[in-house]
């Protein structure tokens, strides 16, 4: 276990109590992230990736419970009281969400949205906070920052709103940024701008944890990728390795599903047949077996485990992994 990790997540489980049953959204997730590093968690809707992130911040819905361990900068966050969590949120970990229109309070001006974190915590005077808000808007390349401060979120374009949301997430100078599907609601050209800005955030020494369903989005940004399926990490590897030689059939299928600008165009896009299992219907064996061409009897019976002892090392939870690339692993 490396001592310098900024965020250490161990055996994280998240359950939701519903009127019928307990739904297990995250079924034991382990990973870590160092300062200046960008880690991507990639998975489909319902894979548990967002709930894992929310559990780290103590932001689960009221019927949700988290177990396991989340250590951030040496402090345990699971079971921590609200006072500790409130210090960590914003000042320790910034959060950028998918939909900037719903994450920015509609009746507050941009100035209030940017400065309230600093002012509520008594971290800056009003003039100081305003100066820092202007700086933050310049850092995300918002033109005419002075006049933007007086505007409301609905007056900005979608791309500009996402950049304001990024500025807001960074106002209290966190050590770590959580970005949950930060580009999904945006046009490709605006996506590219947001990815550039996130690369800048990482290069300033912050840790960045990015969550997405699109491997294409994180190809140029992430140092390491963890692929999540049905509540578990099924493969983790350095970005180049994972893209050049995915070992889990699910990772390979996700890669093949990304539409390409090169190669045969008429060829069918490789969709993954079927749907992920509902949490209550997850099989005892590999959760991907029903959609996997390589699955055999062992796969449906025994769940393959990821090596949990070395989360920073490439690992795959599969009985029938694809071959490793020559010279790697």
């Amino acid at each position: 276990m490396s001592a310098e990790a900024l965020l250490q997540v161990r055996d994280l489980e998240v359950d939701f109590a519903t009127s019928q049953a307990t739904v297990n959204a995250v079924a034991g997730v382990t990973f870590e992230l160092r300062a200046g590093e960008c880690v991507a968690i990639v998975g489909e809707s319902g894979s548990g990736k967002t709930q894992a992130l929310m559990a780290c911040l103590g932001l689960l819905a009221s019927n949700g419970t988290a177990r396991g361990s989340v250590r951030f900068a040496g402090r345990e966050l699971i079971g921590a009281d609200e006072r500790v969590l409130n210090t960590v949120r914003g000042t320790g970990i910034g959060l950028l969400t998918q939909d900037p229109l719903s994450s920015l309070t509609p009746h507050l001006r941009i100035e209030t949205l940017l400065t309230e974190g600093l002012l509520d915590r008594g971290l800056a005077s009003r003039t100081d906070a305003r100066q820092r808000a202007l700086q933050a808007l310049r850092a995300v390349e918002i033109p005419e920052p002075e006049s933007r401060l007086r505007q409301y979120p609905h007056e900005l374009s979608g791309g500009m709103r996402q950049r304001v949301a990024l500025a807001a997430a960074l106002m209290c100078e966190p050590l770590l940024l959580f970005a949950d599907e930060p580009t999904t609601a945006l046009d490709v050209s605006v996506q590219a701008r947001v990815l550039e800005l996130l690369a800048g955030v990482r290069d300033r020494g912050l840790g960045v944890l990015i969550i997405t369903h699109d491997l294409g989005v994180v190809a140029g940004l992430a140092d390491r990728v963890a692929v999540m399926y049905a509540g578990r990490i099924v493969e983790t590897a350095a970005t180049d390795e994972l893209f050049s030689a995915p070992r889990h059939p699910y990772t390979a299928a996700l890669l093949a599903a990304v539409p390409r600008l090169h190669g045969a165009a008429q060829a069918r896009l490789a969709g993954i047949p079927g749907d992920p299992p509902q949490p209550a219907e997850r099989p005892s064996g590999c959760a991907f077996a029903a959609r996997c061409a390589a699955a055999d009897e062992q796969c449906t019976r025994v769940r393959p485990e990821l090596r949990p002892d070395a989360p920073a090392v490439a690992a795959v939870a599969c009985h029938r992994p694809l071959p490793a690339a020559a010279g790697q692993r």
Partner: protein
Amino acid sequence: MTPVATLLRVEHACVRYALRGTGLFAPSRSLDALSDVSIDIAQGGRLGVVGESGSGKSTLARVVLGLVRASSGRVLWEGRPVDYSDAGDLRALRREMQVVFQDPFGSLDPRMTAGQAVGEALQALAGPVPSVAAQDRILAALSEVGLGATYAHRYPHELSGGQCQRVAIARATVARPRLLVCDEAVSALDVSVQAQIVNLLHELSERHQMSLLFISHNLAVVRHLCEDIAVLCAGRVVERGSRAAIFGNPQAQYTRDLLAAVPEADPALQRARIAAARRIRTQ
């Protein structure tokens, strides 16, 4: 080879929106959402219209569907000008062209099962159908989009985003339209589901000779589906051509910018792009 007949033609369409003035005596302003846009779709052809938010691509779809009136220009259906103010014309056109929108939950009635949603469209478009025959057609339409009979009784909240979009496609295609307009129909979906839906649209288009007007901000998605592509920027067509021309030899700088923004699954290429873009910005 016999020339393929043109199904839909839009000629010199302009759409101008009046904007509210900022004060009582402020001059009224207007916004040109579309300026002199012309497109053609052949029988069974698939045209991709690509551009950013605000480029006018959704407005173009709305003009074709008759949801927005063009200030000038005209729409021809099989060579005949469409009169969108004529109720009869409009009703006939509804049977011929259908639409699938971006938000799969938002476009379905939450109180209707998948089967009811498809049945409603069938009744509205094909007129009264005997109930046994209607049931068969509903199940056939659902099965064609990959949803088995058990899905007919499910409500939208019991379906995933991809399944909802399949229902929306079944609803749009149950009365066999000749043109399907897809307005960012795969943009809100996970990539794995997006691939399934793109393949499904391709199959339906091939099987039934159904033309597609496929609107998207992502050129890579369009490349897999459409033989012809029009690139829209600020309400104008800046480039139009075959798939080979647009991807092999793009002429407009705007097309090249859009191509460069596509998130491809290639780490070395993406890192180089991010680094290059950041260098340009810091200069």
